C-alpha cells in the first residue's frame, strides 16, 4: 500500500502522551532493524498510529532510498494471503514479503480468529528477524489483550519495544488544531481553536473532524466562527449541556498528570527502553538475549545497568572461550553456543575437556608394576590398602598417604597402583601420576605461559591423582593453594587421591594446616624398612632373574645383611648374581661376606633414623630446580 505523503514526522504533533512512541518510531526509521525490533505501538483508535507508521516508512526511504518498505493493514494481509493461496502462489507471496527491509503492519488486533494468517505471520516474523529486517506493528491494545493470538506471536510482538500512546493533553490538542488550520490556510477568531481543544472528543481524528466542520463553515462564507457559536456548530457534542471540559476546575490536576507523564516516560520507561535497546543490539549481533528478555517480562527489581553489565561480562567470556575452544578444536567454529550467555557453563566444561585432551596428565611408569612389588610384613599394610583402592577407587581409603624412608618402595607402589587402576578399568581411567617437584614445575611453567586454566583442566579431569614425594610442596604457596583446590575438587567428585611422603603427614609442618588435616582424613600407612622376609624375596628375585638358585643358607645369610632400604636388597641381589656368574652359578657364604665388604667400601645411602632426608637418595633428589625467575613468579602469584 502506498504511504500517505502527508503523514510525516514533521506533521506529527508531539506531546507528553506520545513522545516515547515518536522517539522510538524515529529511531527505527533512522536505523531499521537495529534499535527496537519489533516496535509495537498501541493506542486507541484515532491517536496517530497509522500516521506514525507512514512517517517511519517515509523517513526510512528518504534516508535509504534502496530500502524495500511495505505498509500493509492486517486485513489486506489476510486478503492477499487468501488470494495467493487461491492462485497457488503462496510461495511467491512469502518470497515477496521475505525480501522486505521494513514491514509496517497496521491494526494487528484483527489477527483474532485468523489462525492461518497468524501462522504465516509467525513464519514471516522469523524470516525477517533472522535477517535483521525491521518490523513495526500497531494495534488498539497491547499484545496480551489480543484475543486468540498465538502465544509464539505474542512473545515475538512483546520481544522488542512495546509503547503506547495516550490521548493528547490540552496543549497538544491546541497544537494539532493550529497545524490543521495552517495546512488549510484558515484563520479563526482568537479563542476558537482553544475552545475546540477543550471539548471532549474520543480521539484526535474526531477532533480534526470537528475543526474540519468549522473550517468548512467559515470558508463557505457563512460568517466567521465565534467562540460562542462553536457549541451550536458542533451539534450534539457542543449542545449537550455545553461542551464538557477536560480542564474545568481541575486544570491543575491535569497539568500535574501531564507533568508526571513526562517524568514517567523520561525516567521509568527510559530504563526499559535502555534495556530493550541493548537487547536488540545484542540480538542483532547474534547473541541469545533470553536473560534480558526475561528481565523485561518480569517485575523489574534488578538494576538494568547491573543486568547489562553482567550480560556484557558474559559476552566477553563467551568470546574468550570461543577463541580458546576453536583454537583447540576447529570443528567447534560457528557453534551457536558461542552466542548464548547461558551456555557459558557448558562451554567452560568443554574448554576444560579440550585443554585436558590437548595435554594429558603424566601417566604412571609402566615398568613399575604391582606384580614385581614384593610384599613382606614391613609393607603389607600399604600394599593391602593399595589393592583395596584398585578394587574400589575413591571409595575406601581416600586419600591414601603412604609414607616411609627413601628406597622402601613408595614410588614403585604408587606407580603400581596407577598401572593397576588403568588395567582394571580397561584403559578407561585417566590417571595422573606425577612427582611433586614436576607438579610444581608444571605449575610454574603454566603461570609463565598464562596457561593456568589449561594446567588446572588437565588435572581436574583425572580419575585418580597420584603424587609422589608430597613433601616437595614445602615452601611453596601457590602450589599448595592450587593443590588444595584440586584436592577438594577431586574428593568431591569421588576421585581417588594417593600421595607418598618421606615423612608422616602430621610432621610436614612446612605445609598448610588445611592440607595436612586433609591428608590425615584418609588412610595414612607407613612402609617400614624391609623386613628379613622381604629382603629374602627381593634378593631371590634378583638372583632368579639372573638364573641363579641360591642355597637356603646363602639366601638366609644374604638377607641378614644390613639393608635399610628395599633398593639395598636389590643391589645385594645384583652383586650376588654377578658373583654367581663368575663362579659358574655357585654361591657360598664367603661370597655373601664379600658383598658385605663391597657394601662397606662404598658410600652407603641410608636413611637417618628419622628418615627425613631425601638427599641421601640420588633418585629422590631433585636435580632440576626451577630457575630463579620461576621461583619468583611462584612466590609472587
Amino acid at each position, binding site marked *: 500500500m502506498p504511504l500517505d505523503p502527508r503523514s510525516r514526522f514533521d506533521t506529527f504533533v508531539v506531546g507528553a502522551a506520545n513522545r516515547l512512541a515518536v522517539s522510538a518510531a524515529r529511531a527505527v526509521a533512522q536505523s531499521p532493524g537495529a534499535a527496537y525490533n519489533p516496535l509495537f505501538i498501541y493506542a486507541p483508535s484515532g491517536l496517530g498510529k497509522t500516521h506514525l507508521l507512514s512517517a517511519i516508512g517515509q523517513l526510512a526511504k528518504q534516508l535509504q532510498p534502496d530500502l524495500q518498505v511495505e505498509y500493509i493493514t492486517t486485513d489486506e494481509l489476510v486478503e492477499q494471503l487468501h488470494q495467493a493461496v487461491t492462485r497457488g502462489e503462496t510461495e511467491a507471496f512469502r518470497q515477496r514479503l521475505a525480501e522486505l527491509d521494513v514491514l509496517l503492519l497496521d491494526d494487528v488486533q484483527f489477527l483474532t480468529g485468523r489462525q492461518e494468517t497468524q501462522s504465516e505471520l509467525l513464519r514471516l516474523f522469523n524470516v525477517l528477524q533472522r535477517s535483521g529486517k525491521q518490523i513495526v506493528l500497531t494495534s488498539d491494545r497491547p499484545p496480551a489483550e489480543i484475543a486468540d493470538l498465538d502465544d509464539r506471536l505474542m512473545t515475538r510482538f512483546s520481544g522488542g519495544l512495546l509503547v503506547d500512546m495516550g490521548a493528547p493533553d490540552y496543549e497538544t490538542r491546541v497544537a494539532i488544531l493550529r497545524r490543521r488550520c495552517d495546512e488549510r490556510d484558515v484563520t479563526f477568531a482568537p479563542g476558537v481553536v482553544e475552545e475546540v481543544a477543550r471539548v471532549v472528543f474520543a480521539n484526535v481524528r474526531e477532533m480534526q473532524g470537528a475543526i474540519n466542520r468549522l473550517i468548512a463553515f467559515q470558508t463557505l462564507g457563512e460568517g466567521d466562527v465565534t467562540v460562542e457559536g462553536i457549541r451550536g456548530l458542533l451539534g450534539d457534542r457542543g449542545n449537550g449541556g455545553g461542551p464538557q471540559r477536560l480542564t474545568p476546575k481541575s486544570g491543575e490536576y491535569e*497539568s500535574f498528570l501531564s507533568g508526571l507523564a513526562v517524568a514517567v516516560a523520561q525516567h521509568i*520507561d*527510559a*530504563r526499559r527502553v535502555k534495556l530493550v535497546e541493548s537487547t536488540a543490539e545484542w540480538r542483532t549481533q547474534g547473541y541469545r538475549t533470553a536473560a534480558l528478555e526475561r528481565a523485561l517480562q518480569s517485575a523489574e527489581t534488578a538494576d538494568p545497568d547491573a543486568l547489562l553489565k553482567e550480560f556484557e561480562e558474559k559476552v566477553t567470556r563467551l568470546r574468550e572461550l570461543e577463541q580458546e575452544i576453536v583454537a583447540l578444536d576447529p570443528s567447534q567454529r560457528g557453534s551457536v553456543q558461542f552466542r548464548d550467555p547461558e551456555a557459558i557453563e557448558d562451554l567452560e566444561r568443554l574448554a576444560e575437556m579440550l585443554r585436558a585432551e590437548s595435554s594429558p596428565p603424566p601417566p604412571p611408569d609402566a615398568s613399575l608394576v604391582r606384580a614385581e612389588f614384593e610384599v613382606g610384613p614391613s609393607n603389607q599394610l600399604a600394599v593391602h590398602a593399595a589393592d583395596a583402592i584398585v578394587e574400589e577407587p575413591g571409595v575406601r581409603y581416600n586419600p591414601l598417604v603412604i609414607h616411609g624412608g627413601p628406597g622402601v618402595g613408595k614410588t614403585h607402589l604408587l606407580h603400581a597402583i596407577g598401572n593397576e587402576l588403568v588395567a582394571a578399568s580397561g584403559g578407561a581411567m585417566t590417571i595422573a601420576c606425577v612427582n611433586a617437584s614436576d607438579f610444581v614445575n608444571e605449575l610454574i611453567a603454566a603461570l609463565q605461559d598464562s596457561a593456568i586454566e589449561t594446567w588446572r583442566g588437565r588435572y581436574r579431569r583425572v580419575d585418580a591423582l597420584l603424587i609422589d614425594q608430597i613433601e616437595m610442596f614445602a615452601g611453596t604457596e601457590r602450589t599448595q593453594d592450587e593443590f588444595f583446590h584440586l584436592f577438594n575438587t577431586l574428593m568431591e567428585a569421588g576421585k581417588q587421591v594417593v600421595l607418598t611422603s618421606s615423612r608422616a603427614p602430621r610432621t610436614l609442618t612446612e605445609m598448610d594446616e588445611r592440607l595436612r588435616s586433609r591428608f590425615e582424613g584418609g588412610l595414612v600407612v607407613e612402609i617400614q624398612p624391609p623386613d628379613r622376609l622381604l629382603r629374602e624375596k627381593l634378593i631371590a628375585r634378583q638372583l632368579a632373574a639372573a638364573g641363579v638358585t641360591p642355597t637356603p643358607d646363602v639366601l638366609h645369610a644374604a638377607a641378614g645383611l644390613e639393608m635399610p632400604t628395599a633398593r639395598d636388597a636389590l643391589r645385594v641381589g645384583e652383586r650376588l648374581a654377578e658373583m654367581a656368574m663368575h663362579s659358574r652359578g655357585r654361591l657360598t657364604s664367603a661370597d655373601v661376606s664379600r658383598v658385605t665388604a663391597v657394601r662397606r667400601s662404598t658410600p652407603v645411602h641410608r636413611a637417618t633414623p628419622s628418615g627425613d632426608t631425601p638427599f641421601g637418595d640420588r633418585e629422590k633428589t631433585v636435580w632440576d630446580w626451577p630457575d630463579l625467575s620461576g621461583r619468583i613468579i611462584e612466590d609472587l602469584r
Partner: protein
Amino acid sequence: MSLVNYATREITCKIVYYGPGRSGKTTNLHYVYGQVPDERKGKMVSLATQTDRTLFFDFLPLDLGTISGFTTRLQLYTVPGQVYYQATRKLVLQGADGVVFVADSQARQLDENIESLQDLHANLGNQGMDPRTVPLVLQYNKQDLPHDMIMSVDDLDEALNFRGVPRFAADALHGVGVFETLRGIAELVLKRLASPAEAGSR
C-alpha cells in the same frame, strides 16, 4: 514499598508529608483530594482530634490511571506534627519513597521547623534510610500571610534548605503550590526509582 512493575506496568509510590504541627500538611492533602476526580481517589482517611489536629495520620490513595502506559498509584500520608507523636511519625515514615517537608513560613515558627526537620533526619536514619538520598522537597507554606509575619523564601532557604533540594512557596489553604509540590516530589521519586545511584548522588 516503591515498585515499578514492568510486567503489569504499574508504579506505586508512598509519599509522606512531614513537618511541624499546624504547618499545613493535612491541608495539602485536603486540597489534592478536592481537585482529583472522584474516580481517581480513594477514601481519605483522617484521624483527627476534636480540635482538628491530626491524631494518627491522614492517608489519601490516588489512582492516577495509566500514565505513559503505567498504572500509577500514589499513596499520600501525613504525620502528626506535634512533638509527642514521635512513635506515629516513625511508623508512617516506614517505607516512604519520598518526603514533602511542609514548613510553616511564619517567622515565629522557625524553631519548630528546624526541630521538625532534625526530627525527620533522625527518624529516617533510624529507619535505615540515608537522609541525604531520600527524595525530599520543601514546601514553604502560608506565604499568603502578611510579609511582616513570615520569612521570605530566600530566608527560609537559608535556614532550612541546606541540601538545596527543590522547594515550593505555597498557600495550601487556597491550593497555591500544592500540586507543584506534589509533582516535584513525584518526579524525584520516579527519578530515584529509575536510577537509584543517580538520585542518590543528588
